[in-house]
Each structure stands twice: as C-alpha cells, then as structure tokens.
C-alpha cells in the first residue's frame, strides 16, 4: 500500500499544529512556576525591575570543601526546614510599626506584606507536603510577637483546619488602612502596586490541609519574647489585650547614640533589649489610636515552648520539654539523629545564649549517637548570633559524624564549610517565610561510595493556591528594607547545592 499524500489543506493544518505545539512547549510560552515549589524545576527571579517572574530552576551545585564528590547511594533521611514564618497579628496594639521608618535594625517592625503571613505559611506547607519529607523542622520564630492568637493560627496551619487570620472586631484594623494618612506605611488600596481589597482578603477564613507528617519545633526569640526582644511585662501585656495602639511616632523620637546593627546579626532587631525598652518608653508618651480589643492577643511568655512541643507531639502524647527548654533529640530512621538546641534567651534580647550545661549535654548526645550521622539544629546560628556559640561549635568540631549545623534567625540563605580535625561539617542557615525570598529548605542526606555522605539541599518556594501568596512574595521583593536589598536569598552556592562530606577516618 502506498502512503497517502497530504493534500494542501491537511499540510497546512499539520504545519499550523506543529507550530502551535512548538510555541506551547517553550518557544516563547510563558514559564509556569513549579507546582510543588521546588526551585530545581523553576523559581522566581527578579530581572532587576523589582517585578518577579518565573525563571529557570537552579540545578544542584557540588561543593567539595569537606570531601570529594562521590557517587551517591541510598538516601538516609529526607528533611524539610521551615523557619521564621513570623505569623503575626497585624492589628495587634502591642506592635510598634512606626519604628520601621528608622531603618536598620528596626526595619522589621513593619513590612508591607505583614498581613499575609498565614497565607505564606500555608503555601510553604503545601510545598513541603509535595516534597514528602520524613520529618519537618520548624526552625523557630513561628510567630512574631509571642501572642496566643498568632500561635493558634500558625499551629492550625501546621495541623490542618480552618484559620481565621484576623483579630479584633473588624478582622483588620491597622496602619495599612487607606484612612491612615501616614505616608510611611504601604496602603494597598492607595499605594502602588495597588491591591484593592487586599486587607479584607487577608483576614478571610482559609482552609489548610496541614503538614500531615512529623515535625519538631525549635524555639525562636519571637516565639518567646515580645517583638523578639522583650520578656512580657505588665505594660506589654496590657497593650496586647487593650484598645490603644501606637501607630505614630511620638514627636522628636530619636535613636540612641551608638545604636548599630551587628552586621551578621538578625534583622529581627538589636541584640540588646535595653534599646527597645527605651523606645517603648518614648513611644508610650506619644499619640495613640483606638482599636478593637481582643483577648486572644494575650502574650504567652515561655509557655509557648510547652504549646509548641505539645502541638508537635500530637494530642495525648507527652511533650519532651525539660524545664521548659526545647533541647532534645529526634532520630530519623536508623542512620540519622537530629539534635535540637534551645539557645533563645530567657532574659530578653534577640540573640542566642548558651546556658551552662548545654555544651556538656550536646557532647553526651553526640557521643550517644554512635554511628548515626548528626544534624544539629538551633534557631540562632551558633557563629555570630549566639553568645557562647563557639563552645558548642568546639564540641561539634570533635565529633566526626556531625554533618551539618542548621539554623534560621538571620532570614538569609547561607552555607559555609566548617573544617575540623574530625572532618568538618556544613553551617547552613535558611531564609525566612516573611522576608524575600520566602523559601523553605529541602534536605536529603544520602550515602556516598567510600563511606561518606552527601547532603543535597534545595529551596522550596511556597505554592500559591490563591493569589495572596504571590502578592506577599512580590511585596516582599519590592520592600526597600527587606530581603532583596539585604540579599537574603544568598548566592547560588547557598541555595541548591550538593554538600559532600568525606567518610569518617
């Protein structure tokens, strides 16, 4: 049988179809964000205009400072690191948003995207579910201001259910209303990029599926302290549940002399709470605004630690806090152990603090780990943000099976190799969900030939079922006091990398 020849019409249709297929498959078609949030497939990039667009994924880059690249074998553990969500109540009278206009280190007291933290956390949960880890590390600063309603919202997102993100009688009553004449706040109904109705949408009920897998909490400064700085006082407690809010700076408010940000410090605020206390004293002397009171804004102080562990453990299961501290261990399979260290100060201040006995306890846990590979987790990085952190690092330096030291707090992606006589380990910090780039981190620890391991890690963008997550990411990128100018996204060597670690000698 001879092949049938195409007539002209059929040929034209075939050509048109082929051209259309070509177009659809990428010759000019707009790239879509990865449905699972994996930045290996695609990610959000800023071409320099401030407007994010979907760009190509970032492949894993090999880093061999701690061991040569070797063929990869079986996976030992699959972990997600979600940190610094800063779920916050933007209507709370216990906030001092006007401090942000003073710039660093106070810029985090107001963010244009701050009404959308619940939605972003929900999107991050969605991406983590798609990654399907064995364990999720909630790396601290799950909430922003030590408030009960903030914690309730955040835990509902992690557990699954319906969240009502607003507070007070109006859902939202804060500085971003269009009726607020203060030009230093982004008001979505008025200021570009305009998002009319955003504030109403932000407090609309949200149904979330939850993580649906084990997770372990790490205590952050914002979880336990007001604004990540202050131990709750009668003044702050009364403010939180009261009806007077501080929206405007008092006249002649000024920064104390010598007030500077520690270059490697957290954007959460200055390490010394005396500065913030001084500000509060001035602020309370200034004009206030009447807002709706809400008792669910009550401050939790350090009871938050118990609530976190109880939530992570699940109903009816014992919470493994010891004296209200969240130090603990968690095994992942037969080959990996997670050691969680609680370095959050109890006397105030955003920086970490190693308490007496912690180095010894860490040494015990590392010794008891045996042949397991160990990942140590803190909220504040041990180098540069934690007083006494070097002592813990020296302990870790002696143990050959420590693979990585994982932290949050700085809101910055960064990976540094720490060589040691025992083989060294990787110092990893993960960006936050509140500041650009609003990413979590996926980690897969695998064996390599020769007895070493490789820790594959890549970033996860939060996935947006609606539009609010994307709005938050865009606003966060535009923020001139946010993650973009401070380069929180890090370099490609801080994001999607393959971290080799040689075998134990």
């Amino acid at each position, binding site marked *: 049988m001879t092949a049938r020849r195409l007539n002209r019409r059929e040929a034209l249709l075939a050509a048109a179809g082929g051209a259309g297929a070509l177009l659809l498959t990428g010759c000019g078609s707009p790239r879509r964000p990865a449905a699972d949030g994996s930045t290996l497939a695609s990610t959000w990039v800023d071409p*320099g*205009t401030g*407007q994010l667009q979907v760009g190509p994924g970032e492949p894993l880059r090999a880093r061999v400072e701690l061991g040569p690249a070797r063929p990869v074998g079986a996976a030992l553990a699959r972990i997600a690191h979600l940190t610094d969500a800063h779920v916050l109540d933007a209507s709370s009278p216990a906030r001092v948003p006007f401090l942000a206009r003073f710039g660093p280190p106070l810029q985090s007291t107001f963010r244009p995207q701050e009404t959308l933290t619940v939605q972003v956390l929900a999107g991050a949960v969605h991406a983590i579910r798609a990654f399907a880890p064995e364990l999720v590390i909630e790396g601290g600063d799950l909430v922003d201001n030590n408030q009960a309603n903030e914690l309730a919202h955040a835990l509902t997102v992690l557990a699954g259910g319906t969240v009502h993100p607003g507070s007070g009688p109006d859902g939202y009553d804060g500085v971003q209303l269009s009726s607020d*004449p203060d*030009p230093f706040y982004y008001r979505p109904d008025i200021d570009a990029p305009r998002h009319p109705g955003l504030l109403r949408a932000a407090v609309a009920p949200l149904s979330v599926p939850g993580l649906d897998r084990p997770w372990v909490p790490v205590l952050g400064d914002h979880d336990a302290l007001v604004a990540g700085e202050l131990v709750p006082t009668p003044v702050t407690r009364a403010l939180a549940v009261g009806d007077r809010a501080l929206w405007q700076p008092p006249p002649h408010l000024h920064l104390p002399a010598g007030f500077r940000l520690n270059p490697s410090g957290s954007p959460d605020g200055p390490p010394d709470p005396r500065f913030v206390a001084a500000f509060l004293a001035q602020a309370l002397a200034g004009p206030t605004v009447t807002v709706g009171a809400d008792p669910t804004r009550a401050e939790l102080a350090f009871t938050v630690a118990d609530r976190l562990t109880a939530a992570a453990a699940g109903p009816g299961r014992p919470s493994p806090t010891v004296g209200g501290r969240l130090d603990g261990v968690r095994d992942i399979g037969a080959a990996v152990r997670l050691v969680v260290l609680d370095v959050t100060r109890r006397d105030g201040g955003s920086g970490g603090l190693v308490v007496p006995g912690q180095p010894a306890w860490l040494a015990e846990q590392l010794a008891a780990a045996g042949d397991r590979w160990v990942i140590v987790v803190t909220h504040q990085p041990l180098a540069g943000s934690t007083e006494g952190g070097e002592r813990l690092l020296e302990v870790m330096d002696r143990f050959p099976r420590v693979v990585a030291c994982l932290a949050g707090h700085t809101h910055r992606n960064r990976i540094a190799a720490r060589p040691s006589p025992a083989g060294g380990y990787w110092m990893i910090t993960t960006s936050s969900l509140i500041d650009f780039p609003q990413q979590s981190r996926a980690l897969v620890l695998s064996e390599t030939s020769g007895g070493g391991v490789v820790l594959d890690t890549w970033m996860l963008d939060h996935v947006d079922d609606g539009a609010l997550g994307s709005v938050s990411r865009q606003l966060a990128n535009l923020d*001139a*006091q946010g993650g*973009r100018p401070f380069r929180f996204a890090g370099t490609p060597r801080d994001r999607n990398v393959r971290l080799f670690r040689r075998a134990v000698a």
Partner: protein
Amino acid sequence: MSATPGGGSRGRRRRFGDALRMLARSPRRALFTAAGVLLAAAMLSAAVVITDGLGGGFARASARADLGDLIIRFDPESARTVAAKLAALPDVSGFALRSEITSVGVRFGAHRSGTAVAEVLGPGRRQGFAVVAGHRLPAGGAPDVLVETAWAQAWGIAIGDELDVRGLGPERVVGYAEGPDDVGYPLGAPRFYLTRAQLVARFGIPTVGPVNFAEVWLRDPRLVDEVLVQARDESYGLRGLKFSTRAGVQVLISQAAGLVIDLLVALSVIALVTAAVMLGAAARAEVQRRLRSIGIRRALGAGRWALAAGQGLEVALVAVPAATVGTLAGFLATHGASGRLLSLLNEPAPGAGLILPLLGSWALSVAVPVLGAAWPAWRVTRGPVIGLLRGTDVATSRPRFPWPARGGGGLTGLGVRLVAARPARLVATVAMLASSTAFILLMIALAGTLSSLETDPQELGKRYELTAAAPAAAAARIARLPGVAAAEPRYELTAVDAYELGELVDVVAYPRQLSRFEAPPLAAGRRPHGADQAEVGVGLADALGLAPGSALLLELPSGRQLDLRVSGTVNSLAYEGLVAYLPAAVLLRADPAAPEQIAVLLAPRASTATVSAEMRRIGFPPTLTAGAVARGAPLVAVLTTILRAVAVLDGLVCLYALLQACALTVQERRSTVAVLRACGASPGAIARLLSGAVVTLIAPAAALGVLAEAWLLGPALARLAAGYASLDLAPTRVDVLAVLAGLALAGAIAVWAVTRRALAEPVLAGLAR
C-alpha cells in the same frame, strides 16, 4: 493634442507634452491652481513644524538628555546616606547625585542676576542633561561651566566667554546645556553646571559632601509608581522632599502644548479641505469645459485611465512646484518661532526629523489636487462616448432649492442665483469660509488675550486679577464695584506635614467659590465636594503618597492639625505642587487667625486700572496678581507670533476660496456672461453679477463664523485652557469688524480679479460655447 496617447514611454512623453500644452493655453488658470495648492501646502507644513516641534519636543529632549525617570529634591543630606537609600530601591538602573544651589549671583557684561541656580555635579556620566554645544565639563579642577542654551541666547554668552559667579569668580563657559526637567531662562532661573571636583580642587572641601538632588533611572519606567512608594518609605530623615517623575513633567508640558497643536491641526485640515474642494470644483468645471475634446479622444480609443491620468498630470505639473514653494514657505514662516519656543522649554528642534513629515505634507498637498483633478475625468468618461461628444452643460440636475428660481434683483440677483444653482458647492464654500472666519477670529482673540495676560507661568491657574489686604467683611463692598465680577475672602498659610518630612505645604482656602477663583487642571479624582475635602497638588501627592480618597494630616502654625480627605489631585505649577485647596470653614475651624485677603475677579473686558482706582477710592488699594512681566513675556510673544502668522495664512486661504468660487462661476457660466456682454453689459455690470455671487458666499459665512467663534470655539478653548489661564475669547467688535472688512476686501479683490479675467476673453469665444 494627441488623439490616442497610447502606452509605453512614448505614450508617457506624449501625455507629458499634452499636459504642458494645455497649461500653456491657460496660464492664469494654472497660476490660480498653483496659488491654492501653495496656500494649502503652507498651512499644512506650518502645522507639521509646530506639531512635530511641540508635540515631540519633550520626548526628544528627554532622550537626548537621558532625563531620569525620577527626580528627587530634598534638604541637604549626606551623599552616602542618600546613595544607600537609592541603592535599596527596586528597579533602579542608576542614579546621580548633585547639589543644587539657588540664588547665586552671576554677571556677564551688563547683565546681572541674583537668582541663578548652580548645579554642582557629582561623578558619573549620566547627569540628566544634554551638552548641545561645546564640550562636557573636564574631570579636573578647571574653572569651567556649562550654561543653559536659552540663558546664553538671552544674554549673548558665547562659548569661551567668562561668566562672573559670585563666590567663584570668573568661570569659563565651555559649552551649552539643556535639561528638560525645567524650563529655560527667562521662564526659569538662569542655570549653570559645574563639577564638585572643581570646588574640591579650589577650596579643599571634601570630595563627597552633602547633596540635595537625586536623578534616578529605572530599568522599567512603567514601574515608577512602585518605586515612588518605596522611595517615600525609605525617606524618613530626609526633609523637604519633592518628587517629580518624567511622565509627570511631560504631562504638564504636553497639556499646554496640546492646545496649540490641536488648534493648528484643525486649521490646517480646514485649509486643506478648502483647497481640495476648490480645486476639485475647478477641475470638474475644467472637465466640463473639455467634454467635447474628451469625447473625441474617447471615440479615437483613448482609455479612461489615460484620460484621467492626463488631467491629473496637468494639475501635477502645477501642484508639484506650488506645493514645494508652499511647504518651504510654511516651514520658513514658523520654523524660527517654533525654535525659539522650544528653546525656552529646553527642548531641541526636530532638525532633520522634520524632513519626513514635511515630505509627507508635501505629498499630501500634491496628491489631493491631483486626485481631485483626475477623479472628475474618470467619472465623466464612464458614460457613453456619444454623450461626451454631444456635450453637456453645467446644470445637469434640477435646482434643489425653489429659490431664487426666477427673476428679480437685477444682475446682482442673477449672480446670487448662479451661485445658488450649485447648492452643494455653495454649502461647502460657505462652510469653509465660515470655519476660516471663526478660526481667524479665534486666533486674533487668543493672540490679544495672551498679550494682555503677560503672566508668569508660575501663576497659571489663578483666575483673579487683583488682591487687597482687607478683612473678609470688605468682600461684599468690593464686589459691588463696577467692573468686578466677584470678590471673595482668600486665606493662605503655610502648613507642615504631620510626619516630619519637612514638607512645607501651601494651604489655600475660599469660603464658597474655590473653582471660580483658582482651579488648576484636575489630574485625578474630582473637585472638593464635601466639608472636609481638599484637592492637592501632584507634588504634594507624590511627596506624601496621596491619591483620591487618601487621608491628609497637616500641622498648622497654630499648633492644631488639619485632618482632610483628598478628593482629587491637580497639576498645579504654583508652589511646586506642594499645595492644598480646601473650604475656608475647615481651615478657620483649625486656625481662626489664618491670614486673609480679598481676591477680586474682574468682569470681561473690565479695566484693571479703573477697578484698581475704585478700590483705592474706597480704601482698599489692590495688588496685581500677575507676576513679573519679564519671565512670561517671551513665551507669550512667541505664541502670539505663531498665532498671528497662522491667522494671516488662513486669511489668504479665504481669499483663495473666494477667488476660486468667482472664477468657477464665470467659467461655468461663460455663455451667460458672453450673452450679457454681447447685449452691452459694462464691466461694472459684470462686476455686479459677480458681487452678487460673492455676497451670497460671504454674508452667511461671516455670520456663521462670528457666531461659531462666540458660541462654540471660544468657549471650548477657554474651557480647555481653564486650568492655565482665564481666557476671554469672545470676539470684540473691533475684531469682528476687522475680519468682516477683511472678508469684504477679499471679496472685492475676487470680484475685481475675476471680472478682469472674464472681460479679457473675447465675447465670441463665450458665445461659441
């Protein structure tokens, strides 16, 4: 004439020769046609020069100067601090910082000024202005400056001259600069540029010092609003902030230029249509006259295309040179004035960029008459050849109007009926004349009004002419004075923004009729319509992030606050846009002691001097609102020159239309005129005949033209320009009489010229027809 032109190059040469011969037979007709084409081309090219110049001036200036997308002025601040804030903004591709020093004393020859602006430049090649002559400033410490072109022209400063700058001494002028972010001297202050490196070398000041001016370039200028929001959020600590965007400056300038452009485009369309109608009618009449010869050529095999092309070629031989001369004439008439206007605006002339548009207008000026000539020939040849050979006369259709069907009026009445026998042409010609009359009246009124304004552009937006330092209670008494249309208390004070931005805001309030006394053009939203509403200048809106619906909080000198809702934003040139207009009741509630004066709005054509004398008589000596004459006068003078030149051109178009109408009438009624002459009609009789025709055209056209200007065009233009100035564009009696006299004169010239031409033709030739 060849019977069968045929195809190919031989045929083309033959057609060319035929056309030349036909022109040679009727040189006066050819000249007449040429005059019409010349006038239309001149009007069109004048419109092109002005439109392209003004319409594209800002875009050219911005591109040439690489004007920033965002210009920010502020009180002096450390350059490092400002640079850090700008570097944190999204979408920024670069920025330049400088120190702008005002009230600098300069002297050159006999010229002096104490208001010069020195732009002390930082490092970097992008600076937001163009060096249009000479060379850039050297990197070292030599005492060199660049001066603005308009200032250099006004003072006669040449490159190489020395300018004496107070505090610096002699500075050598190494070039001319133009920065489109501001207007040129004398509209704006004299401006010169020098480098900070020069000051460092001479005085040992630090290399990096305080700055008060930032020019920012964006990767995507469409996102300037987003950048503005972030810039404002970053600006805490900077005081006296003023933002202006490239788009915002362009809107302001385009609004003013747009009025002039729209007028000129309308005028040129009228002129072109007039010429086209007249030329088309002439061509049709000519075709009618040649019907028999056309029929013979058709009978001998000539094609319709060839015949139409022949007609078109004949006109083209006239139109091409006429359009060329006309295009050049229009260009020359307006090029100088347009260039001067652009120089005042710190904008470059189109230069070689005009070539294409002028070629286009030239082509249009040729194409319209050529097509107008070819079309009747094409049409008439579609019928049977026998009809052509039989020949037809002018009136092939019954008159549509029942009058003036028969008798009466003598020769003048006959002239009326001859014109009325062509009702479509009558209506078209009257419409053209009426439009031209209306526009001439408008141009004259506008030129006169602008000359009498002598307004400082900074004052545009104010409609009242006088103010008096008097209590509010005196307003009623002043309002009753003859020549006063309205008088109201006016309150004005300086407030400060409530957020320590250091923004000084001018607050202006009236009890009732804010928009009657002061109303800059609305940029967004609407005029205040509620008790606590205000409209704010765009400058203030940008500085404080205001939009319709926003809340505005100002602190008054009394210590109290004004809590307002923004109803709209206005393009106010006054106070650099840092102004808020609101009802007096709101202001007085917060500050009962707000400074007051009486604003006085004069009645149309009331004498300022007379009203001032009356006000002095009753004890309230007034002050003129209009600012200094010097700054606005050159702009006004240039605009007036342009408008008057255009009015003259339009007048010539009217003359041409009348001449053409009379000539057509005579041409179509050659046999009638010949019969009259054969019966002994004198030249005066023929003139009376034509006078009737001319009066039939002029009388309704004049009436319609005057009414159109008084009721339609004048009020429409006044409304368009309402935000910039209060324009009284109703024609004065003198204007109307002058234009009517001009029309009558044009009619008389037409009658005289056509009569002469008609009498020159032998009577037998007309009878043979």
